[in-house]
Every structure is written in C-alpha cells, then in structure tokens.
C-alpha cells in the first residue's frame, strides 16, 4: 500500500508543469480525438480491411494546419496495432515530404523502413518500378500465397507531387490498384486542391477517397476541449492541488480565443499561459489567457517600427505621402529624399538638415529590415538612388506606430497627419 507523501507547493507546480508541457508540446496522443468520431471510424475501417482482409486502399486526409491529421492517424494506427492479426503482419512505412525531397531518397527510406537493406545489397535496378516490385516481392511469405500488408503513410503529400514525373506516387498507387500486394496508401495534406497537382495517370489510379477534417466546434465544445487539455489527470499525487487547478475559472476569457478553434490541437496560447504558472502564481487565471492571446495577436511590423530612429521614421512618413499622392506607384530614393527635404525646409523645427549620405544610410537600414523592397529584386543596372522600391507597410500600420512612438516630435506627427505633403 503506497503511502501518499504530501508534496510541497513547489513540487506540485513543477509536476503539473511537467505533465502539461508534455501534453501540449510533445503532443502525446489522447485516447480519442475530439469531435472526429466519424472520420476516425472511417479510417479505422479502411485500414482494418487492408490489414486483415488484404484489400488495397488509398485515401487522402485533408485538413488545415493544426486540425489534427497526424493525431488522428496516430490514434488509428495505435488501435490497429492492438488487433491481434494486424500486429503480426502489418508493416508500416512513414515518409515525409519535407524530408524525402527526392524519389531516390524516398526509395532508400522505404528500403530501410522495411528492413530490406541486406536483401537489396548492391543490386542495381533499371527503374523505380523494378526496385519497388523487388521490395514487395521480398515481402511475400514462403508459400508464395500472400504477402504481408504494407501501410504507406505520406506526410505532406502535396510535396511529393512536385517530384519529377511523380514516379513515387505513380508506382505506389499502381501497386495499390493491381492485386499483387495488399497496400494502403495514406496521404496527409493541408491543400484542398491537392488532386489538381496530380498528373492524369496518377489521378486515375487514386481511389478519390478523401477524409476532410474541418473542425466545426461550437463554443461549448471548444470550452470542453480546452478544459480537457488543461486539466490534471485524476492520479495526480496531490488531490487538493489538482482540484483547485481543475476548477479554476477561466471560461470567460476563452471567448476571444474561440477564433483560434482551427488550431485547437496546436495550442500556443495554452502553452504560454501554462508557462506563466510558478510558485507565487500557482493556478491559471483569466489574465494569463488574455495576456497570451494579446501576445499572439500583436502586429510585429508595428512593433518593429517602434525601434526606428527619428530620421528613419521621417523617411517612412515621406514614403507614405508618396504612396498617397501617386496611388501606390513605386518610388526611388531620390523622390523620398526630395519629400524629406521639403518637410525640413517648410515645416520642421526639431529636425535639422541631414546630409544626403546620412539619409541614404538610414534608407539602407530600412532596406535591410525589409520594410522597403525593390520592385525587381534581380538585376539592378540602375544606380542605387534611382532603383524603384515599394513600401511594405499599410497606411494604418504607420499611423498606429506613430501614436505609440516614444517622444515623437509634434511637427513630425503633424506632417504625417496632414493630407497634403
């Protein structure tokens, strides 16, 4: 019989942090994915048919980033492997479009994951198809009656469609159509138009089965989802602490966050709030979640404008005026300098006249920050001062940045607000 030690507050907090961080960052698989029951059942049925009955299948899972595609697949595969027949037979090959950027690399990876490097040895194959056929042949059982089913998971499926001739896709889907080996090809992608990327011959071999994951949670479901992600498990050593934690009220602050439902499974704001918990601040408050959402939705360009010098700010205002006067046509440094000189001569008291090279250095700093970009970023046969540029900021962003600029001289503000330069 285990004696329950009473843990100190600090230990409770650190244990809670550890659990929650592992859940939020490392994305441990939950028992059942939320609000995805029908898709779960569909996928599980498909894979069961391949694993147990030997049918070949191909399916695409489509959904925006953070909607739970990998998580759904993980849960389904976990349940599949718990079936007795599947456990002994099924082979899993996981490919990622970001890592396997070429068909040769992909083929080597397939060989490695099927543990067939020794079998292949130093053989040289004429084509991709021959190689793949050899690999699948090697998986046949001794009496040549049937072969072990293979599940191919292709993460970032749309990147595979950019390979040369789409050979990998063509061959995999070809195998899934012919009756040689039971093969399941699962693609995960975030692009809705992924089928348009496929060539005609590849598209015709695909079974056109798609599973869409669009999270359409109501607000109540969203609150439940957040609560379940942030709650401590029942076997937490200190029940008082976990009670206080689980019942802390932050539901009110979730309303502005419900705009982020698409990324329910990629919880940055939950992580940020959890990271603020410490010994002195040992439960989650509403303020934490609100601060986290404010951090996430901050406009980074406006924040960067806060750190510019006065001269650079004046140049940005001059560019804004040029944009307004000439309706967004590209400008060059000479025009900006001209506007700036007009301001210095007529209206300014606080800013004294700077030499042209100093103004040029400030302009180049803006170029390096990519707040201003040249129109044709390739060959520049024109002198630096005459190269055409565009401002990458909106009118509203500039005005907002001016409001928050520390110790902005009033004549600069007046100049920015005036309609006529």
């Amino acid at each position, binding site marked *: 019989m285990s004696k329950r030690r009473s843990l100190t507050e600090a230990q409770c907090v650190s244990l809670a942090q*550890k659990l929650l961080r592992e859940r939020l960052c490392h994305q441990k698989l939950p028992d059942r994915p939320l609000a995805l029951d029908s898709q779960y059942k569909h996928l599980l049925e498909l894979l069961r048919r391949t694993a147990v009955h030997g049918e070949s299948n191909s399916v695409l899972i489509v959904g925006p980033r953070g909607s739970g595609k990998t998580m759904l697949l993980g849960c389904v595969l976990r349940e599949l492997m718990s079936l007795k027949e599947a456990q002994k037979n099924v082979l899993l090959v996981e490919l990622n479009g970001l890592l396997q950027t070429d068909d040769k690399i992909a083929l080597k990876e397939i060989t490695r994951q099927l543990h067939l490097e020794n079998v292949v040895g130093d053989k040289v194959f004429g084509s991709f198809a021959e190689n793949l056929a050899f690999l699948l042949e090697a998986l046949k059982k001794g009496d040549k009656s049937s072969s072990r089913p293979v599940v191919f998971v292709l993460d970032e499926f749309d990147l595979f469609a950019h390979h040369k001739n789409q050979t990998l896709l063509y061959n995999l889907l070809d195998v899934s159509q012919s009756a040689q080996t039971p093969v399941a090809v699962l693609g995960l992608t975030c692009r809705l138009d992924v089928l348009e990327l496929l060539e005609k011959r590849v598209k015709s071999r695909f079974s056109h089965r798609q599973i869409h994951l669009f999270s359409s949670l109501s607000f109540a479901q969203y609150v439940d989802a957040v609560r379940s992600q942030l709650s401590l498990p029942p076997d937490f050593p200190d029940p008082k602490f976990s009670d206080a934690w689980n019942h802390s009220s932050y539901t009110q602050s979730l309303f502005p966050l419900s705009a982020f439902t698409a990324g329910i499974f990629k919880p940055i704001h939950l992580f940020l709030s959890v990271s603020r918990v410490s010994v002195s601040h040992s439960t989650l408050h509403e303020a934490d979640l609100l601060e986290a959402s404010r951090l996430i939705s901050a406009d980074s360009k406006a924040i960067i404008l806060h750190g510019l010098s006065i001269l650079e700010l004046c140049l940005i205002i001059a560019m804004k005026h040029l944009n307004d006067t000439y309706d967004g046509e590209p400008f060059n440094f000479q025009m900006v300098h001209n506007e700036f000189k007009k301001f210095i001569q007529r209206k300014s008291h606080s800013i004294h006249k*700077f030499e042209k090279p100093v103004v040029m250095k400030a302009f180049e700093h803006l170029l390096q920050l990519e707040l201003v970009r040249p129109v044709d970023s390739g060959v520049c046969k024109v002198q630096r001062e005459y190269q055409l540029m565009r401002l990458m900021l909106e009118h509203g962003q500039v005005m907002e940045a001016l409001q928050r600029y520390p110790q902005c001289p009033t004549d600069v503000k007046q100049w920015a607000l005036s309609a006529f330069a």
Partner: protein
Amino acid sequence: MVSTPLSKWKLAAITSAPCGAYMNYAEGLMASNIPTSPQETAVDFQEMGLQDKLLRKPTNQSITRMSVTLQCPGYPEDTLRSLAERLPCRETQLATLLALMGQPDQYSYPSVFIYGHRATGKSHVVLSIMKDLELPHASVDCVECVSSGLLFHQVLSAFFGPDAAALLPRCPSLSDFVRLYKQMSSNSPATQTRYIILDRAERMRDMDFSLLPALLRLQELVNDNVTVILLSEIVWEKFRPNTGCFEPLLFHFPDYSKAELVQILSWDHHPSYTPELYASYINILLGVFFSVCRDLRELRHLAVLNFSKFCEPLEKGEAKESDIHKLWKNIEPHLQRAMQTVYLREVSSVQWEQQQMDEKEATTLRVLSAHAHIELPYYSKFLLIAAYLASFNPARTDRRFFLKSHGKIRKTNFLKKHEKTSNHLLGPKPFPLDRLMAIFYSVVDSRVAPTASIFSQISSLVTLQLLSQVGHDDQLDSPKYKCSVSLDFILAISRTVGFDVVKYLYDFL
C-alpha cells in the same frame, strides 16, 4: 601612436567586438567602481514587466534599478543572479525566456522565434543563458552555412561529438540528418532539453525550401526533447512558406530607450574619470546621434572613438569637469563631422584618430569616397558636363539650350501635364554618342577637333565609372551612355572651369 593608458583602453574596447567579451573586460576595469547597487526588490515579474510590454504602454523613462528576483526552479539561484547582473535592461526578457524554457527536464515548445532590432541583445542573452546554466546547445550562425550540410554537421557534433558528425554522408540531405539524429538520440536519450540556436535565421529562407519547416517541427520528427530557437531581425510574416508550416512561438526583444542606452553605455567609462563626466559625455553624444541611429554597437564605437577629444580641454587644463557647457562647445562640431565621415565609414577609425592627434584646427578630411578629389583633364570635364546635360535634359529641349538662335518652342498639352516629375528624380537617361558630341561642341568655348584623344577620354570616363555604358559591347557604331554622377559633383566640376551648368538644365528653368 603613443600608447597611453587611454589609448590602450580604447584599443581593447574597439577590437573586442562581441558585446559579451567587452562587458567582461569593462567589469574587470571597474571592479571597485560599480555604480549604485541595484535595489533588490522582490517584484513579481508577471505584474511589472510582462504587463508593461504586453499592454504596450510607453515604457518608464526613469532608470529603474530594480532587479527582479527570478523565480525559476531547477537552476541554481546565484547563477541566475549573476546572469541577471550581466544583462542590464534585459531582466524581463531573461525571466520570460526562463519561464518558457521551464525546468531542464521538462519539454519546451518545439520552436521559438525571437525577433528585434540589431544590437538589442538577442544572441547575447540567449547564449549567456546557455553557457551559464550549462545547457546542452548547438549554436549555429546561418551566415556561415552556405550549404545545409554544414548546419547538420555543426548540430550533430555539438550534441553527439565529432564521431557522430563523421557518419554523415558527403552531401547530406535532411533525411540523412533526421535519421542519424534519431539513431544517436536513441543511443543517448536527452535528460535535459537540447537547444539548437540559429542566429541570423533570415538566411535560411534562401537555403533548401524544406529546411525551415522541417527544423520548426524537429521535436516531432526526431521524437526527442529538442527545441529550436531562431534569432532574426526580420519579422515572422516574411518567413512563412506558401503552404504554411508549424508556427513557432514569437517573442519580441524591444529596443532600448534613451535612458537605457545611457545606462548601458555608462558601463564602460574610463577609470581615470568620474562616471558622472562619462554620463554627461554620453548624453551629449546621444543628443547628436540619437535621432539618426539607435544601434548600440555603433553608438559604443563612436563613444569610444571620440572620448579623447572630449577630454582634451580637461587634459590641457582649460576646463574643469563641471564646465559641461565648455566641453560641449568643444566636442559638438567634432561629433557633427564624425557623423559625416566615421559614421558613414568614409574614413576608417584609425584615420579618424590620427586626424585628431595631428590636426588641431578644423580642416576638411580626406575622405575615402572616390569622387571627392578627382583631377580630370580640361576636356574631360567638359565631356562630363555635356554627358550630364544629355542625361538629364530631354532631347527635344536641346535646340533651345544649345542653338544660338532658336524659334519659340511651344509647349503642348502633353508637356504641360507631365512637367511635375523632375528628371532629377527619375534618374539619368541613356543618350547616343552623337548627341554627346553635339552638346560637347556647343558647350566648349574653343574649337575642338574630333580626334582620337577626345574619344579615348570618353572611354576613361567610363572606366572611372563616371559614365556607364548602356547596351551591349558589340554596338560599335552608336554606343549609348548614361551619366552616373550627382548634381553636387557636377556643380563642383563646372565651378572649376567657370561654366554655369544650372543655366542649361531643364529642371531648373
């Protein structure tokens, strides 16, 4: 150069470029002169620092010497305190970073993107944290990684030793790197979070297109406790790939306010003068340069270069330390000149110092910029003037300027509408050689024969990059040129030959 203690100190200051190394040196210098000890106030950092930053209130201008007691379990207290003292004005950011990192054995968010202006201390803070708390990290500067293989090599050798890095094939792909990392980490799993720090991460956008998205989700791909920290000057919106990627946690390092700059720059005051004198010197310097440049590194460089000139009256005995006004009058024109030369890197720092020692009066400095002291032959000057006129006057106005008798030129409607855009704003236009010669003959007062010497002068002007050739080299019959010289230069040249060029320019009619 006579090596006085002052110059030795300056040399050390200028040559030790990384902020961290210099800070250590400065600390050693002023071991006994630490300015007012920070009041240890136990302020809850969440309330003070984070609120201020997040609610975007104007930051408090007064120098607050409160050091925040960092409540971070898992790290030794005194290390944290010494770390906080070495990072002035960055206590809030340090505390937030430590909160994000959590305890060493806990998981942290897979990728963090830290952005802010240059010289705001991003690399300094992150690397100091890593080194002082002895966390396993791999620090890579993306400017050095011309190929992704170099990046993989550095990461693997930092975490698993050079033998692991040697296992990488010749031109490693991302797939090889991930596979090798998985293999190595299954042999030696991570007891603490491993950090990969990518400095100047904007260069990664030019490398393989899949490198950045893959590194952002490295924790998931290798199934290990690793966090990638990206440091950059450029905002995250410019990094995002077309089809999206795993969004990192964005963290901003705010720029230093004027008071904070004074505080930091006063750290490296010279031991033989009082800190108050140095602080007033810094205030004068910021008064000149703050509206132009807020980069800490540049300001420090300028401060160090000009301090000896500032102290000249004190050394000569003309003024006391309290005569701030006199010292200001002495140094201010000097700083203005510095803005036009050293700040622009027209003159090297060594030259600038020599200038201060040799010449006591304010004379014009010999600048590096090539155009300033070019001596051209007589006809070349006229050729250049003719080229300038050809570039910046529209061809149809040549008759009016260069013919002895011209009729009235009627301006059509089209001309009147587009007069506003001055040619000087749009840039020089190309002109054929014949037009140049025509204008040249009318501009030069004496009769000139079209000999080879005249034409060869045109070629030498092209070599000097005062003219530039437009179009292909093969066009021998009628080559086209463009004048790449500024108005000030032409005015200076025409003054030396006694020619009024403004009278002939269309934009100045």
